[in-house]
């Protein structure tokens, strides 16, 4: 069984193309894909930055065409690619170990637009769960995704890939934690009620911020935001009074005049009796007088400062991703070992079936020729079974013990050649057809190396 992956991400396609291939109904798309004869197991991963399909197949070339058609027709609606060009220009394709490595890298957020971001792991877990519910994820992809999640955990724990915040909102919160030990007893004043403020508010709330006050020129928007985040809405004229009891100020409001001047804060700081205040100005043009940073007990960061911290942190994450790549490689090798062990199972079954066929054929022939009675026949049967078992035990044990990919594949090929398992004219080969049919019905057949009909042709 081969693993095949076809995908499109921020690395291969611009946003207008990715938008075209956004998955609306994951369940329907997945079922449609799994219904194809060429596809064994299937998992569909769809996020705002990537759409990927991972499948297992015994006919890689045919499955490849199915996946391309699936992308073009089912996901893309059979419409021309935005900005011209062809689908092939925007998709990437990985097979077997390359596909395994890619899935591990994606789960570990090494391949993400923001390296180390935590969302992708949850999105991949959702995709895996959906595939399990739809019955399109079998033992091979289950194992692949379980190992991917374990790899992601190792990368997160053993590297600093996700240590430093990279979004402006998270950077602001991180800076606040350098000034204040505990945010639970702190009060934050939000000046503005736009998207940036909401993101920062969300990040602060996650850190357990105590009290939220929202000030905006349009009171209705302040009230709406206050309702969503269980805060209080205030008029813009109340800023001076609110400053007396506020610890963190976040500002992002339109206007060419500062809403907070150095003089205003100086008065407030005197009344605050030395309690520090942290101010984050995310507005352009700036909402808070930069001279405030010169005041004692006031710490001011503007959007450029936050961006600079975010960029440096992102660079640090990229450096850490190199350590993550090493972990991915280790896990990929481990998975390859498991795959070899899995591939040994059909070879072992095949060898046992052939031996049994030869034994029973020869036994029948001898029994009729020698004219044995019931007891004698049982004795000979036990004798032949014992001989076959003892002869096959060493090679079967060796096949089952292989976990190294290269060596394991070599041993498998050697065993198949030595016992002529791929020769349809060899003694006992009559059983092959029956065996293949049984395993096909069971749906867990993993073709041994070299037995792929497409590869053979």
């Amino acid at each position, binding site marked *: 069984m081969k693993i095949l992956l076809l995908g499109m991400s921020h690395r291969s396609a611009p946003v207008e193309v990715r938008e075209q291939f956004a998955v609306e109904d994951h369940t329907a798309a997945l079922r449609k894909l799994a219904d194809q004869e060429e596809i064994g197991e299937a998992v569909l991963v769809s996020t705002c930055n990537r759409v990927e399909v991972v499948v297992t197949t015994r006919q890689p070339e045919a499955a490849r065409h199915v996946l391309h058609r699936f992308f073009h027709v089912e996901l893309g609606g059979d419409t021309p690619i935005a900005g011209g060009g062809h689908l092939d220009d925007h998709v990437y394709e990985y097979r077997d170990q390359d596909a395994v490595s890619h899935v591990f890298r994606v789960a570990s957020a090494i391949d993400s637009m923001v390296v180390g971001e935590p969302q992708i792991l949850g999105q991949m877990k959702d995709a895996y769960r959906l595939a399990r519910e739809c019955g399109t994820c079998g033992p091979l992809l289950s194992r692949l995704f379980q190992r991917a999640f374990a790899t992601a955990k190792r990368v997160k724990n053993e590297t*600093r890939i996700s*240590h*430093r915040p990279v979004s402006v909102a998270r950077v602001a919160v991180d*800076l606040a*934690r*350098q*000034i*204040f*030990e*505990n945010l639970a007893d702190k009060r934050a004043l939000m000046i503005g009620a736009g998207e940036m403020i909401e993101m920062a508010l969300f990040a602060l709330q996650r850190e357990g911020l105590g009290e939220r006050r929202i000030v905006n020129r349009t009171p209705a928007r302040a009230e709406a935001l206050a309702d969503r985040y269980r805060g209080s809405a205030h008029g813009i004229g109340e800023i001076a009074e609110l400053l007396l009891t506020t610890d963190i100020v976040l500002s992002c409001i339109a206007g060419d005049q500062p809403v907070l001047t150095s003089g205003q804060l100086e008065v407030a700081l005197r009344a605050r*009796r*030395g*309690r*520090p205040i942290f101010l984050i100005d995310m507005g352009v043009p700036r909402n808070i007088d930069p001279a405030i*940073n010169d005041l*004692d*007990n006031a*710490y001011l*960061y503007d959007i450029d*400062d936050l961006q*600079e*911290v975010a960029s*440096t942190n992102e660079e*640090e994450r990229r450096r850490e991703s190199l350590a993550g790549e090493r972990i991915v490689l280790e896990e990929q090798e481990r998975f390859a070992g498991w795959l070899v062990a899995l591939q040994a199972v059909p070879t072992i079954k095949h060898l046992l079936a052939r031996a049994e066929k030869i034994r029973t054929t020869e036994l029948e022939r001898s029994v009729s020729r020698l004219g044995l009675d019931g007891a004698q026949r049982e004795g000979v049967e036990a004798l032949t079974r014992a001989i076959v078992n003892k002869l096959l035990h060493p090679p079967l044990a060796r096949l089952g013990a292989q976990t190294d990919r290269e060596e394991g594949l070599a041993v498998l090929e050697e065993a198949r050649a030595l016992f002529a398992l791929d020769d349809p004219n060899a003694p006992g080969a009559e059983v092959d057809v029956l065996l293949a049919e049984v395993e096909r019905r069971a749906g867990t057949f993993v073709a041994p190396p070299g037995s792929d009909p497409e590869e053979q042709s």
Partner: protein
Amino acid sequence: MIELQQTAAAIYLAAGVGALMGITLPSVRASRGAVWGLALGALVQAAALATLHRQDPVPSLTSLPLAVSFMVWVAILFLLAFMWRVRLTGLAAVAGPVAFLAVFLASLSVPSEGTSSIGSTGPMPHAHVLLSSAGLGLLGVSGIAGVFFLLEHRRIKRKRLVSRGFRLPSLEALDRVNVTALAVGFPLLTLGVITGSAWLLSVEGIVWSGSEHETWTLIAWGIYAGLAVARFFGHQGARQAAASAVAGFAFLLFAVVGVELLA
């Protein structure tokens, strides 16, 4: 007793190295190990102090090495008590090596014979040494927290990036250590000064001899009284309080230890 003191010193050093590893790697396990190391060091040092009376001859509690050793012990206990609730592991990277130096050097110079042995002159000398050393220990912690506060304040003001691994405790945590150490340390120092006078009264019949040690200590106490008033009644800001704590402790160290050594 000397062996126990040196063992405690070695454990403090190991704890300091562990804390440094904890913040540079960064490793939570190393940081936690450092805190437990400090606790173990304090326990061993407590055993050393508790077995003082078994020595023959019993060393003088009023000797400078023993007083320094006790001062460090109190400071470490105070820090450990704070570490239960506040993220202060970074301070262990400084506290460990400082404690090692103080306790190890003290162990080398522990006098073999006391000039005023325990029990020979009543409880006042003990009370004076223990209270003054405890006060000095706490004000020392306040000074170290002040240094850290000023470094961190400067970094945040100048918007200099710092690796998450190298991060110091938050300004709020450092300020809390500073204010608590002052709130507890200053009264202990005050009691130390009072019991010192009482000791003098019991021995020489006077409360003030005019020695250099007394004069400088009283000046230092006056400075700390001013700092305490500014902090608790004048609503002094955290940065000014940190700077005051550093300057105050430097002066106090000179007044109590420096003058003694120079004499």
